[in-house]
């Protein structure tokens, strides 16, 4: 059976992609952030996963407000990236994994989740920045990626409890898939930040650290927060915690923390970096 060996929480802000394009990793502004990925990549390279499931939110590259799925699962053999206007160089196409994608879709619908199913989508920085952080040489052609998208742009958005349950169902689907593939799941985005309004710029590292503590040992604790609570505590875009909750939901075994760090500010954001090992 396919095995989920671990989960990774990572920021996905465009500025990270720009910094990598410009080779700024070892400059004072960026050093602590990029150094956090050294231990993460050490584990990741040793695991050398066959499949990477990435929870992200599309910021209007593929899913504009005209048609915006609450949950969407990619089932394509390949995904392209494209210009979003942020000045990040588009990355070469990402390989998909059709068989497991369809199995996930089947199991989700069978268990009363009804995602939008995408046979052709472009993936945006929400996916490509974390992918490139794991493969800085862009040698990601050896891994197959399943993009799973959660609306974090327009309310109503899924509750944290729903994203967690969605992740749990995906975890069960992966673990019931025949084969000996090693799977890593990534939850991207966050943590606290607010880009808009007179309250722009709020960061709440105390709350972020609480989230990173609870997500290891007691993720259900976090489901008591409404998204309005999250906006109040962690800023308007703090709702990207949804992707971390879905990632954590996938980990159905004994979960321990392999690495954790919080670096702020990165752009306007507190960047959480976390490795969860699933046994």
């Amino acid at each position: 059976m396919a095995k989920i060996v671990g989960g990774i929480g990572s920021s996905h802000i465009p500025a990270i992609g720009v910094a990598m394009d410009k080779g700024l990793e070892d400059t004072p502004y960026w050093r602590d952030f990029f150094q956090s990925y050294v231990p993460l990549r050490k584990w990741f390279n040793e695991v050398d996963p066959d499949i990477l499931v990435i929870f992200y939110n599309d910021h209007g590259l593929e899913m504009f407000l005209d048609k915006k799925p609450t949950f969407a699962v990619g089932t394509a053999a390949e995904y392209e990236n494209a210009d979003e206007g942020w000045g990040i160089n588009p990355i070469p196409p990402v390989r998909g994994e059709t068989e497991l994608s369809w199995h996930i879709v089947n199991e989700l619908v069978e268990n009363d989740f009804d995602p939008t199913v995408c046979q052709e989508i472009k993936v945006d920085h929400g996916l490509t920045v974390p992918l490139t952080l794991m493969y800085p040489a862009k040698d990601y052609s050896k891994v197959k990626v399943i993009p799973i998208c959660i609306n974090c742009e327009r309310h109503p958005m899924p509750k944290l409890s729903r994203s967690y349950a969605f992740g749990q169902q995906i975890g069960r689907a992966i673990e019931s898939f025949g084969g000996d593939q090693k799977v890593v799941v990534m939850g991207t985005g966050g943590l606290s930040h607010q880009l808009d309004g007179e309250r722009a710029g709020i960061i709440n590292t105390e709350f972020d650290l609480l989230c990173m503590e609870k997500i290891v040992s007691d993720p259900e604790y976090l489901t008591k927060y409404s998204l309005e609570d999250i906006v109040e505590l962690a800023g308007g875009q703090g709702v990207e915690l949804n992707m971390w909750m879905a990632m954590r939901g996938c980990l159905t075994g004994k979960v321990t923390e392999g690495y954790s760090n919080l670096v702020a500010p990165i752009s306007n954001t507190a960047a959480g970096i976390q490795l969860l090992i699933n046994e």
Partner: protein
Amino acid sequence: MTIKKMRDIEGTTFFDGPMSTKGYPVNKMFHSFNSKDGRDAFVADEEAYMEKFKLNEAQKQCVRDRDVLGLIREGGSIYYLAKIGPILGLNVQDFGGLQTGKTTEEFQAYLDSQGIGKNNG
């Protein structure tokens, strides 16, 4: 029956259904800045480009004034509004300053004052 109103949080606009209805033309125009063609067409003739996307007069005035808070009141989503930044040479810290009445340096200092794990381990 009325539409559920979201919590009142100072300095924060929930981008919900009614705001998305109100701001659809604005967001659609800013969304077009994904492509270089869209960015170039806006720069070449802002008024014609706003007309093409059927912005209302209040929305047009906010674009002319580079009034970010006004655009948010008019239904703009920050994910789309921010796409004008690279066209004007503004980053998200500049945007933060514009919305909070700070200079970019003051806004950066505000971010730094809440920092953790950086340059000090």
